[in-house]
């Protein structure tokens, strides 16, 4: 902490108050409300909401599908984005900037516009689908399916992966690589013994964020497959605003479970990745 005088401290707190207020109003309050609602059923405190979800193959299925798609696309993104980020590091600064800006726009260009773009290109009669069928590479490709979701998710996940991994690569300076090279290490050995261990915490962190990003995705999935996809976010949306199945308390229960699913790996990672100092 920087040493500041009493006056400075007061000013610092005064400046922080609006920010803390926003956090309180838009993060702590809603979360508390969601938590509270989840333990009420028809106005009385109960755990029936949890019992209903944990006892329902349908709702558990939503968790399973969301979890699988998120884990899968997070892994795909990591595996694809990692080498891209490494190659990008070796490019001239201008190319780096262009690709990073493009990735940045891409990761935020989700929801209806993204779904629409994919439908035009890869829908049942999308141009790329037809090309692939023409070329005999696929028989048919249905983007309105779980496989289709994985495909579309992977797109923005990879771009986010690049954005997350690229800065972390700064930890591997060229002279570390050259030092290893002069000592006889091959490129592969360098990555195995030095590069990956250095990056491991960042990669784990990136995987986690990618997973959370996919778990929380709603608009893109909703636009592409509507309520047909059994995803946690889509079920929550339906229970909150749907006209047939509306049950806000149940929605809040699912939301609470979603938060728990996201919190567990984050806490676990903090715990596992705490630097092990072998310094006696």
């Amino acid at each position, binding site marked *: 902490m920087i040493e500041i005088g009493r006056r400075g401290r007061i000013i610092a707190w005064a400046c922080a108050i609006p920010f803390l207020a926003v956090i309180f109003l838009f993060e702590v309050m809603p979360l508390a409300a969601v938590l509270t609602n989840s333990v009420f059923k028809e106005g009385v405190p109960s755990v029936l909401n949890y019992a209903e979800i944990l006892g329902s193959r349908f709702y558990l299925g939503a968790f399973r599908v969301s979890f699988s798609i998120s884990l899968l696309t997070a892994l795909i993104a990591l595996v694809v984005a990692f080498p891209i980020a490494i190659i990008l590091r070796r490019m001239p600064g201008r190319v780096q900037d262009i690709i990073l800006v493009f990735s940045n726009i891409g990761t935020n260009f989700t929801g209806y516009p993204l779904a629409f773009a994919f439908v035009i290109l890869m829908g049942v009669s999308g141009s790329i689908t037809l090309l692939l069928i023409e070329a005999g590479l696929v028989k048919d490709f249905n983007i309105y399916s779980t496989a289709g979701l994985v495909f579309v998710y992977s797109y923005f996940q990879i771009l986010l992966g690049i954005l997350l991994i690229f800065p972390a690569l700064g930890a591997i300076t060229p*002279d570390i690589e050259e030092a*290893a090279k002069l000592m006889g*290490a091959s490129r592969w050995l360098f990555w195995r013994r030095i590069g990956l261990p250095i990056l491991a915490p960042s990669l784990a962190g990136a995987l986690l964020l990618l997973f959370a990003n996919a778990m929380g995705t709603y608009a893109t999935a909703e636009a592409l497959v509507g309520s047909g996809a059994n995803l946690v976010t889509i079920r929550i949306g339906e229970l909150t605003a749907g006209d047939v199945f509306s049950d806000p308390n149940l929605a809040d229960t699912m939301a609470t479970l979603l938060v728990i699913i996201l919190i567990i790996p984050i806490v676990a990672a903090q715990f596992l990745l705490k630097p092990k100092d072998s*310094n006696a």
Partner: protein
Amino acid sequence: MSYVEIRNLSKRFGDTPVFESIDLDVEKGSICVLVGPSGCGKTTLLRAVAGLAAPDQGTITIDGKDVTRLEAKQRGIGMVFQHYALFPNMSVEQNLAFGLEQMKLPATIIAKKVSRMVDLMGLGPRAKARPATLSGGQKQRVALARALVLEPKLLLLDEPLSALDAQIRKRLRDELKKLQHEMGFTAIFVTHDQEEALLLGDRIGVMQSGRFAQVGGPSEIYGHPATMAVAKFIGDFNILDPVTIEQVFNRKCCLNWAVHPQAIEIFRPIPKPKLSEGIYQADVQITGVHVLGCVLRYMVQAKGVALKIDALNRPNMTPMKKGDAARISLSAADICELQN
């Protein structure tokens, strides 16, 4: 034939040449220091010798073997970088062992070599520490140990001390000199610091825009700088152009002079100076006197030309004062005539 021979070496990036047709010899068991202004190609030369950058032309021979086309790891070269370049995920010992492991040595021999080097460098208490927990001086000691434990044919050091503060820097410099005496390794050492260069270098190469302005022993470089660039690097010379020389000493010549401040004698004016061959004298006005420990630095004006003169600061001596008139004398043998 020298131990390390660089012949006719050239390197360009695109259209801009970094250095052209460079020759350099390094004797076995000696330190060759490279100095020169920023961007003159010192790092590029080291990288070419190490095999990290391919030269466009020329040959590099180490211990009688042409290594110009060899891969970096086959050249037997150790390198120490300005910013340490330690492996952050490994302890001090593991950093040292890494290169030995690549040589596929038995574990017991690796352990023995590592522990001997750890002791030699005084790293014992920190042997199990990660680099992030070490001080700058310790880090550079680890980097040096990591290179030396492999017993490289040639050690390259690119400004290894410039990231350290003055005190640690001096200590490590002296340690390095001592270590070199004990182990007898051969090294090329890049620095910007003239004191470091004069102290460490058995030979010093002063680079100037991609070529060597002068290569020689420290006393040669210090005593007889060949060009303006070399004199500027050594610093602290009185540099006089032909016009000034004529003005002050009434001599005609066509080259610049570099004169050490301690090569000029200063004394109280005498009525009838006897002039002899090869001795140049002039009347001056003292404009300042500084006590620099064992040295007295006089700032003087001779016919409007500022000169600095160092005299030994003897105890019990009454120094001349600011404003005094004085006479200076300079022997022709102490003048360095600068080419170009």
